[in-house]
């Protein structure tokens, strides 16, 4: 379980200092699919990065099971990420001088996953193993970044707008693939999105509004990407 208690985060200094996260407390159960919704600039990415140990909050604590990761050293955080966490970033962040195959292998090697090519196939890039990120379309790059995270077999998967650059059909395939893997392996998903429909696929929905949580609710049943007609 991941539990955030009263976390705050500020950006900037002096005059321009401003609070992006205002006393946020949430619980995310193992195996849950949680979606974070909110307007642009409301602090979704910041919350995701803080929960996933990439950024430290200015106050508050974040517990992974019983351990407070805000007290961890850099190398302890690295270890935590290595063993537990997968990321998909809003801006993809692929390695520019590695081809698709190797970008995905970067994730796969950490968990000893020899079967990572099947993940590349599943996101529809089986034919582009030898292409470099600069030779791919935006959506293809996004799918590489999805494959890279999934190939790591993470216990918790953090996704920041993983379908932002994808058309409906491809987006649906990618999401369904992620959900199918989740059913199989039972990992936890925390996903940021603008898309209200996607929220219906989740167990829990967290709505954010200028740095605060405005609403949390649970869906009775989870829908598939096809059911939401997206």
């Amino acid at each position, binding site marked *: 379980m991941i539990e955030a208690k009263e976390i705050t985060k500020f950006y900037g200094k002096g005059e321009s200092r401003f609070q992006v996260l205002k006393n946020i407390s949430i619980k995310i159960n193992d195996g849950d699919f949680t979606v974070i919704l909110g307007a642009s600039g409301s602090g979704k990415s910041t919350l995701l*990065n803080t929960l996933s140990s*990439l*950024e430290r909050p200015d106050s508050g604590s974040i517990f992974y099971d019983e351990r407070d990761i805000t007290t961890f050293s*850099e*190398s302890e955080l*690295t*270890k*935590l*990420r*290595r*063993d537990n*966490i997968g*990321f998909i*970033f809003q*801006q993809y*962040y692929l*390695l*520019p*001088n*590695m*081809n698709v195959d*190797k970008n995905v*292998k*970067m*994730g*796969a*090697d*950490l968990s000893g996953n020899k079967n990572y090519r099947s993940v590349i196939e599943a996101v529809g890039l089986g034919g582009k193993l*030898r292409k*470099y990120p*600069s*030779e791919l379309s935006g959506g293809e790059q996004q799918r590489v970044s999805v494959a890279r995270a999934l190939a*790591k077999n993470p216990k918790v998967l953090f996704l920041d707008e993983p379908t932002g650059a994808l058309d409906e059909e491809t987006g649906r395939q990618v999401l369904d693939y992620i959900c199918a893997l989740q059913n199989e392996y039972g990992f936890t998903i925390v996903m940021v999105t603008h898309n209200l429909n996607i929220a219906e696929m989740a167990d829990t929905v967290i709505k954010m509004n200028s740095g605060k949580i405005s609403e949390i609710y649970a869906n009775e049943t989870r829908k598939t990407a096809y059911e939401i007609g997206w």
Partner: protein
Amino acid sequence: MLIGIKDIAKLFAISVVTCCAAFVCTLFLNYNIDIVGIKDEITTPQGMVMYDAQVATGKVVAGIAGGCLVATTIVLLIFYVKNYIDSHGKELGILKALGYSDLSVAKHFWVFGVSVFAGAVIGYAAAALYMPTFYDIQNNMELFPQMKPEFHVSLVLYIIAFPTVFFMLLAVLYAFFKIKSPVLGLLRETQNVKFKVSKSDKGDFPFLTDLKKSTLKSRKILVFFVGFSAFCFSAMTQMSMSMDELASEAMSFMIISIGLILAFMTLFMSLTSVVKSNTKTIAMMKVFGYSQRECSGSILGGYRPISYVGFVIGTAYQYLLLRIMVDVVFADFENMPEFHFNFEALAISAVTFLAAYEMILYCYSKKISGQSVKSIMLE
């Protein structure tokens, strides 16, 4: 303006190098020109021998120092221009897309030559200030009739004006040549991945092994630069230490100081560039949970063997150069000290090199680990 003051400030390494070069060359050439003027006043045959030796030494020192340093400056300047274009590909690409011509963009790069100008002026001024003392030292040895430093316009031309113009043109020309690539190439940074698929690409190596290879392959200029800086470090430190047997104390102190400054300068710069151009990859690997050791091992470690090779070549080069100088230039002089390979200098140089190399890399990987991923990736 296209290129900011901050970008120019980054070129201060070039200024330091040209400053040293201008200083040494001004001092020795000025003295040489002046000494030619008093040739007729020398009467004793012994005096004439000393005179020839002095003129020869001046030429050798100015030649080696000037030649080495000019070569270094060329490499540095091209490296900086290339780096600037690579890292500002987007801006340059957008300018071109908007319809600016290659030349109108490239001509802004003349400001890179300002660093050479600044360095040369400071070096020249420093030499002019130091000159009376230098002449006093020489006069006190009473080898020749007393001399006073004279001012020579030709030196200002050779040491400040020509190099400045030369390097400004070089920067513009090289930039022009680089910017001529297609707009989309600049925008999408494809130049980074233009290497061929080799056999090793197809093999199934662990990610870290692949990474080590592709890091080296994707930035060949950096590989060259690291090797070159190791070469400079080794050649300059050893040469300056070995030369003290051939030159007076004041001179050898100067040569050693300059040698050390330059050696550390180039090494520092090349390693800085290595780290900078790989920061994103390191940051991304950290996000995924690769340890500090794995990151520096596979990214920064790949350059290590290259730097060793550079160091060895530098050792051989400085020995040969000095050997030739001693054998050719001083061939006619008796009483020249025997010149041998200086093992002590090699040992000192090697140990300093290893220590400096590892220190710089260590500091950088520490620094990277303190930065947030977002700030690194968006840079």
